[in-house]
């Protein structure tokens, strides 16, 4: 067990070192706060892989689609009836999110899940998850120009956003994200506080 962990760590360090090289040569503009002593590219990238598993689960990716129509269901298929993102991410005309999605989940399978703030990212900041590699997503999340103008503090706080937390209250018949909320939040904080490093790929 210890041995394995050690190997993993070694491997992680190597990956992370490669990662750091790539990161430094990339357009990565997020400057990690905190002292150099808290930075650990290996730990950070590993933590992000956990975060990534959650962000790519249907509960998150479904509202971070590559196109302008949200996804739905466990297979992340295009949302029936093709509701459009709209400028503010809240839908358009007669097809606004809140026309069906209430403030709370409704009982029963296939009923629209609810949240008081149900929406997609806005058109000028689409924050696409769908199809992104871990590295692409990490870079996107750390860049204020692509993460909704979030600095480190706001990024840390985002784990407490009601819609993010709502992923763990998905409504009847929907799977939970692969990590518990506590595990996710811990991984999210670890990723950011250890430097918000992007994995190599």
């Amino acid at each position: 067990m210890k041995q394995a962990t050690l190997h993993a760590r070694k491997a992680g360090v190597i990956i992370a070192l490669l990662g750091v090289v790539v990161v430094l040569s990339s357009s990565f503009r997020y400057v990690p706060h905190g002292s150099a002593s808290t930075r650990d590219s290996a730990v950070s990238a590993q933590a992000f892989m956990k975060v990534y598993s959650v962000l790519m689960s249907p509960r998150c990716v479904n509202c971070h689609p590559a196109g302008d129509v949200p996804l739905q269901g466990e297979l992340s298929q295009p949302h029936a009836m093709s509701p459009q993102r709209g400028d503010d991410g809240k839908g358009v005309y007669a097809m606004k999110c809140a026309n069906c999605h209430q403030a709370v989940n409704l009982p029963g399978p296939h009923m629209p899940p609810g949240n008081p703030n149900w929406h997609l990212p806005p058109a000028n900041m689409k924050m696409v998850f769908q199809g992104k590699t871990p590295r692409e997503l990490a870079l996107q999340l750390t860049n204020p120009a692509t993460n909704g103008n979030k600095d480190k503090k706001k990024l840390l706080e985002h784990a407490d956003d009601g819609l993010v937390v709502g992923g763990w209250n998905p409504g009847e018949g929907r799977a939970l994200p692969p990590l518990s909320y506590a595990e996710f939040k811990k991984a999210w904080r670890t990723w950011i506080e250890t430097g918000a490093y992007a994995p190599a790929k």
Partner: protein
Amino acid sequence: MSQQNEATTTSRRNFLKTAGIAGSGLCLALYFPSLAKAAKIVNADEGGVDDVEMNAWVHINTSGKVTIFCHRAEMGQGAYQAVPQIVAEELEVDLDKVNIVFAQGNRKKYGGQVTGGSSTVRGSYKNLLKLGATAREMLIAAAAARWGVPAAECFAASAQVHHRPGGKTLHYGELVVSASKMEAPKEVKQKARADYKLIGKPLKRQDTVLKTNGTAIFGIDKKIPGMKYAAVERNPRLRGTVKSYDDSATMRVPGVTKVIKVKMAVFNTYREGVAVIANSTWAAMQGKKALKVEWDDSGFEHISTEDIYKRQQEDLATKEGLLLKKVGDPDAVIKKGGKVLDVVYQTPYQSHSCMEPLNCIAHYQGDKLEVWGPIQGPDWVQDFLSKEMGVAKENVFINMTFLGGGFGRKAFLDYPHEACVISKEIGAPVQVVWSREDDMTQGPYRPGVSYRCEAVVANGGIEAFKVRMSGQNTDHWDAEKSTKANGSTSEGFLKPYFEAIGNVSFSDVPFETPIPIMWWRSVYASTNGFAYESFIDEIALAAGKDPLELRRQYLKEDRIRKQIDKLVEVSGWKNRKKNEGYGVAMTECFNSTVGQVVKVSRGANGKVKIDHVWAVMDCGWYVNPDTIRAQVEGSIVMALGAATIHEITFKDGLVEQKNFYAYKMPRISDIPFEIEVHIMDNDAAAGGVGEPGLPPFAPALTNAIFDLTGSRIRKLPFDMNTI
């Protein structure tokens, strides 16, 4: 202004109570032409105004108001418009001033009322024309007698009789009492088609106004004083019985008052369920969700979709089945060999899924039974309920409302029967509302059918054409018919092919399951058409012929040739460009032939898209061209859904699609293309309109896809995105 609402239906009820259902008035129906000399005069709602029943379809009151009864169901296809439009033409009344009321179920008075087989106009127009003309002539005769002038000098227009030389005028209300006492003429002069002012014109539908402001009353909208609401949990395996149930949670739902076991007739069997009675629809539905029912599912097969098609196709590989029709000897030709085509087509089970889920109100009162609902066959329902509920037929009153879609499902007798059983049990009027899930998972369905089609192609033509189908037969519910070939096996196939090809046979390889099945818009033509018209296309390819020219070669009747010419002309068939796929199909059902050409191409995203659909309808004599266009447009959209979007599947005897999230529907974004409908003008007898536009679409589409891509689709539904 025409109305169909609470007030008029109530008034109608009052009238019938007073007049008696037998209606001893002047009944001019051709079905039952016995004439009484004195019309029934009753007091109607207006004070001091008498309402006179000129005949079963026409009432005129003494203030001049004309009421025309629509004896058929209005489910979108336009009976509520067509029936009065025909009568008003010969009666000489303005359609927008007529009161239109749905007739109650009464076969003796109206003839068959089952609104199926696209039969409303084609089955009753001659009668409606004659009774309209007869009533008009009697009103003219009454005026002539009053004025002491020859009837020939008088004419009728806009519900008035005019004396041309004298410049005198009387409205129908002033004449109706004396007219009703006259002997009805045996022969009346009817108008020439060229003189029609209403028939053949694209008049606006009289129900549109009611359907744009929420005032049209559908079955689900009807309210009866003291009415309870019910929701019923029925066996999800479509048969079987209730072993036990636990209603403790149900009885705690606010508004729920009672839970009872019920059974309803499904063809020749009964289905059991547990009914939750409540004071609102929602409370009943909530109570139903809280029920725990244990079912006895023994004694019948729990089938899955893959088993269905496996068994059908195994049978088609080895069995000849029951011969329905044979011309020449196709087997002998096939045995000789040569260029033999031998392919299998497969079509899915489909749900009607009317937008208005099934519902029905029943009020059982011992010696009297009254029903209100979206009902396609009120006379059938009357017969059936009289027998099942033990109430004399003349005391069973069936009231039609508007139907929020029908497509065949609402001609079925189960849901009115179930409502009656519940009303009897609780001793109160009750409305049973089926949830969307109930409606979608309980059937009956259009049967899924496999076809084996064989042909021999030689000398640029068809030497033999042999078809076997295997799929559930709507007639086989009656056990006695299970040894007879399904009479619908050749439905959709154009009749001239038989003699022109010379060696043709159609057989039915019987196939049964416990799944209840039922007519679905255009019935077997909806699936046959896909197989047979795809096969003709495959034959054309094998024969090296243009698909339309091959059809012209065999469809030698002048009427069909003209229709083919029209299809060629409007679709630009001869000017097809590279990178465009064109497909054609022609089918016949209910005495109308429809040809369609579909044009497809690849969009910017590389996916195949439909660019245009041209339809040419030949339904002979017709009433309202705009209704025909609308019906063909709608049929094409419905056919698109059945061909490319949805299907009903079974797993272990359970239906897998419960609501529109799984049984997806075409939406407006799926129909960006234009549908262009042309109507042939000729003097042939009237054919059907509501259904014949559906069958040719799927094969025209898949033939077009073949033309574009070289890929032949033999199984429906298919996904347009994966071609």
